[in-house]
């Protein structure tokens, strides 16, 4: 025994720094990760989301009705994006998740305000995401006391009581605002993505690292056959995970499930596309990295923005424009809409169109890149 030697500690330390410097990806991670996270999330994350998309169906075209809409926009919590011509069209916008607020102004609104006859406006809020719904509902609630200040002058502009009209707020899809209804289905997206991307990224890298790839490539198996053979078991893994998560979501959190066969079919299509897309992404990563550690790091590098920019943790509509553009590239963003839409809103294939197309497109692009990158040789 020779006690504690600082020289030996220093020897190990110097060795550790030397190896760290050689590992380019780790080195990049240490420098880029904090920078990227700070810039990306510092600017993107907003727990008080504004500028949520809204639709107004106004059967009253008088000044007072227009003043209500103008006041609503001035709150900055919503942007009126749609002026649907019918209730059916507005319902469709809501079900597809294109709007967070649907405001209906009845034909006799102005008349009843002027008569002081308890005028009402209907505000339907998409409460799938309670955070997003909260801000919008609060903004809508201020309308009765603020709407006509600009219209009325003098003594009439003073706050009046009772208010000139009332807003009836309907929270749709998740009326009690239960956070787990939003988070638990979202977790399925995160769990699938995290495990599948990482597992496939490592499955190939492990063969290279252990030297077994050399043997495998010397057999008649082609790169494509190896890829398909490696991915198929993980599709099964993904499906098993899905069943477990959905069963627990139902049993522990009473999360609603798809109600109809059409709903289940739509959900299944979405899940299979999402699983396959993630596997392809993992495989693509494995063609780039040199070690299992790097595969893990790149997977983490992919997961971080996925958590924040997909709408999993923060309402997607509340992200700034550039962050939404980045978010649209991430498959989790689209799958979140599909799974939440399916479980909470009863969406069917027709409602999921764009998101299914986005997942399909992602899968095709990544698969083409992967096949282009995978080699039957060691070159």
């Amino acid at each position, binding site marked *: 025994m020779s006690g504690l030697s600082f020289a030996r500690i220093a020897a190990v330390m110097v060795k550790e720094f030397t190896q760290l410097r050689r590992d380019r990806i780790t080195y990049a991670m240490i420098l880029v990760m904090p920078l990227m996270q700070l810039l990306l999330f510092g600017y993107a994350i907003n727990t008080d989301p504004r500028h949520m998309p809204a639709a107004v169906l106004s059967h009253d075209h008088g000044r007072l009705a227009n003043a209500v809409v103008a006041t609503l926009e001035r709150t900055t919590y919503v942007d009126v994006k749609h002026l649907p011509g019918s209730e059916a069209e507005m319902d469709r916008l809501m079900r597809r998740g294109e709007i967070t607020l649907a405001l209906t102004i009845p034909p006799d609104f102005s008349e009843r305000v002027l008569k002081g006859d308890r005028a009402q406006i209907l505000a339907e809020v998409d409460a799938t995401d309670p955070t997003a719904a909260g801000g919008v509902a609060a903004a809508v609630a201020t309308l009765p006391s603020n709407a006509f200040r600009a219209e009325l002058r003098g003594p009439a502009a003073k706050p009046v009581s009772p208010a000139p009209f009332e807003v009836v707020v309907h929270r749709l899809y998740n009326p009690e605002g239960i956070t787990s209804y939003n988070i638990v289905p979202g977790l399925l997206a995160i769990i699938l993505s995290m495990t599948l991307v990482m597992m496939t990224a490592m499955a190939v890298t492990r063969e290279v690292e*252990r*030297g*077994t*790839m*050399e*043997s*495998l*490539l*010397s*057999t*008649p*198996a*082609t790169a494509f056959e190896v890829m398909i053979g490696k991915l198929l078991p993980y599709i099964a893994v993904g499906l098993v995970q899905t069943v477990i998560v959905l069963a627990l979501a139902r049993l522990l959190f009473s999360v609603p499930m798809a109600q109809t066969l059409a709903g289940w079919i739509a959900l299944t299509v979405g899940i299979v596309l999402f699983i396959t897309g993630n596997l392809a992404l993992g495989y693509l990563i494995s063609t780039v990295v040199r070690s299992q550690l790097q595969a893990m790091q790149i997977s983490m590098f992919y997961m971080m923005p996925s958590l924040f920019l997909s709408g999993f943790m923060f309402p997607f509509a509340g992200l700034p424009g550039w962050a939404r553009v980045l978010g649209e590239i991430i498959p989790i963003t689209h799958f979140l809409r599909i799974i939440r839409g399916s479980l909470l809103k009863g969406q069917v294939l027709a409602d999921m169109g764009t998101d299914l197309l986005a997942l399909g497109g992602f899968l095709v692009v990544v698969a083409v890149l992967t096949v282009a990158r995978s080699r*039957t*040789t*060691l*070159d």
Partner: protein
Amino acid sequence: MTDTQAAIDVKGLNKSFGDKHVVQDVSIRVEEGRITGFLGPNGAGKTTTLRLLCGLLTPDSGEGEVLGLDFRSQTDAIKRQTGYMTQRFSLYEDMTIEENLSFIARVYELGDRRGRVGQALERLGLQDRRGQLAGALSGGWKQRLALAAATLHEPRLLLLDEPTAGVDPKARREFWDEIHTLADGGLTVLVSTHYMDEAERCHDIGYILYGRLIARGTAAEIIAGSGLVTFNGQGADIGKAAHELEHQDGVLSASAFGAAVHVSGTDRAALERAIAPWRKSPFRWDEVEPSLEDVFIQLMGKTSDDRYAS
């Protein structure tokens, strides 16, 4: 020579990695049923050449046939009839012996999988340990298993990359007996090695250095072709002579072997002059047949001189 069938007949093989020209204009012809040893120092291009021949690497240039098939365009067909044993154990350590063999049988789409795997296990003498993880085997057993896996599909060509590195002498001998049995059955074997005793067990030898094939033929032909003269000096403390002799004119190499010293050169007269001062009691000098090792050390020295000169 052309009346016999060539298992490998390639010309002008080149391969570079970045600015490193690893294989330069290698032309090699291997007759069917022959065991050809591939020798050369580390990094000479042995592994790369083997990988080029079995389609694991794409050559920059070169043409020819492997097993009568165009080696650049028909790699799939060549792979089906070629067994390749990598330098590093490359079966799945987290699978059992039987599972590994079974996987190979499936990948090669072999009929009667159970039968073949059973026979292979029997030949290996591993029936009782079929359920053991491959990773738990000792070096010698891993190497035998790897050979069984590489020959399970009954290839016509077997490429072995330093198959006996780190294996004990008895296992090495058994391994070579097995290789000879396979070659007697018509299999062509190309094996890279560092061991001179293994080189001498090959039918013929190719010596590769800095990516170039610089000697080719049987051991006797290579020794005869080297024009090397070797003297063996014996006597107590003669080892000290080796150091001094090394730097004398006409001496290409001088190495001590216990109580003997091997001195080689191509110029007999110069060599005689160099050892003259040591031709006295108690030392005894005899001219001996140069060994392969003497020849290869000479070849290495010669080429490196050329290399630095150019």
